[in-house]
């Protein structure tokens, strides 16, 4: 009876995990910035998740769990160890408010490649939270589970990440205009 239960579990793992494959790879590649490393990372993630699936608690968020495994594997990898992810840690409150300046609408002129380069240049902690929020369309709660941080921190980090990205884009657009 136990065996068939395990097998059924494995079947549901397949159903849950395989649809995430493309997204996980994209995320891994963004983190590592390297094809071979990203491939290793995805394989490691699936292997770990398969082994650990029995400890995965039904009712908790499977997607956040998978991303957390991938991210932790990344942090323990060669590239990840070199990356400083934990920054000056933010608290939930005290969001600074930016006012909309006319040039803020310049972002309209940012093309895809420009955004990709800007994103690539951001610190990993900003890059990953922006990807989880905008590309994976995770809720704040899911992001909190994935990054193992409180939702208040999700909000403030997202805010700072967006601000940083806007800053980079603005610089690039302005720079481009002045022929730099």
């Amino acid at each position, binding site marked *: 009876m136990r065996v068939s239960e395990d097998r059924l579990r494995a*079947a549901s*793992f397949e159903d849950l995990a395989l649809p995430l494959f493309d997204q996980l790879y994209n995320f891994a*590649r963004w983190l590592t910035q390297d094809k071979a490393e990203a491939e290793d990372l995805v*394989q490691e993630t699936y292997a770990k998740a398969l082994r650990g699936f029995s400890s995965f608690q039904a009712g908790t968020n499977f997607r956040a769990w998978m991303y957390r495994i991938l991210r932790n594997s990344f942090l323990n990898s060669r590239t990840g160890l070199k990356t400083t992810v934990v920054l000056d840690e933010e608290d939930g409150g005290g969001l600074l408010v930016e*006012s909309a300046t006319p040039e803020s*609408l310049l972002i309209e002129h940012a093309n895809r490649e420009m955004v990709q380069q800007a994103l690539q240049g951001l610190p990993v902690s900003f890059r990953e939270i922006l990807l989880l929020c*905008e590309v994976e369309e995770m809720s704040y709660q899911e992001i909190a589970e994935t990054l193992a941080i409180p939702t208040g921190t999700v*909000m403030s980090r997202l805010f700072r990440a967006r601000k940083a990205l806007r800053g980079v884009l603005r610089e690039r657009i302005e720079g481009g205009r002045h022929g730099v």
Partner: protein
Amino acid sequence: MACEEWRGELDPYLDGELAPAESAPLGAHLRRCPVCAADALERVQLKRSLQRAGMRYEPSAELRSKITKMVAARSTSGIVRQWRLVLVPALVVLVAAFLLNAYLGRERSARQRVYSELADLHVATLASATPVDVVSTDRHTVKPWFQGKIPFTFNLPELTGSEFSLMGGRVAYFEQVSGAQLIYQIRKHEISVFIFPERAETSGLPSGAANSESFNTETWTQNGLRYFVIGDASPADIQALTRLLQNAT
């Protein structure tokens, strides 16, 4: 609340993370305040461009098959494989049935609408103090009466030898198009025959008998005209009248 305070809420608002109680007033403010609206627009643009830019890398086919095999090796064996043999086709059937149902549902509802409208016309006519505008049992009186009132002509059957009698006719409107409505009677049951030019709303209707809101109905096309027969007479009587009309010369 000052704009600065709203601004702090903009990101969670656009991320869909505000409760309705909080997002409604912010939405109202955005409709009033062009400065905040411009700010919101810029944030939306950033979200959009990030979404587009973020989906950048595609995994190789080799990696995909590696991962698929790795995962499958643990799962498709024994009892699960047997279950799959049953479950997968069952799911396929379910999905197909669902889609078909949705499609038929749409078809049905279009059809239902036509029949409901005609049933309403039929009932309203019988309830009216003057059900027919041309009162005559003679098809040679009724048919010419429609000339110049509707944009087509049609033939009515000779009723001699049948139990049907013609009560008369009137001009009916179905979705803004004029057509003929004829009232027949058989054993105290009134039957309406509607004749309209065929068009998009009705051309999809399959010919044949149907049962709609306690009425029996029949429909077909002939010479570019759409016929509907509707009434509380028995299906057999509806059929008989249908055959008479179809063979009218």
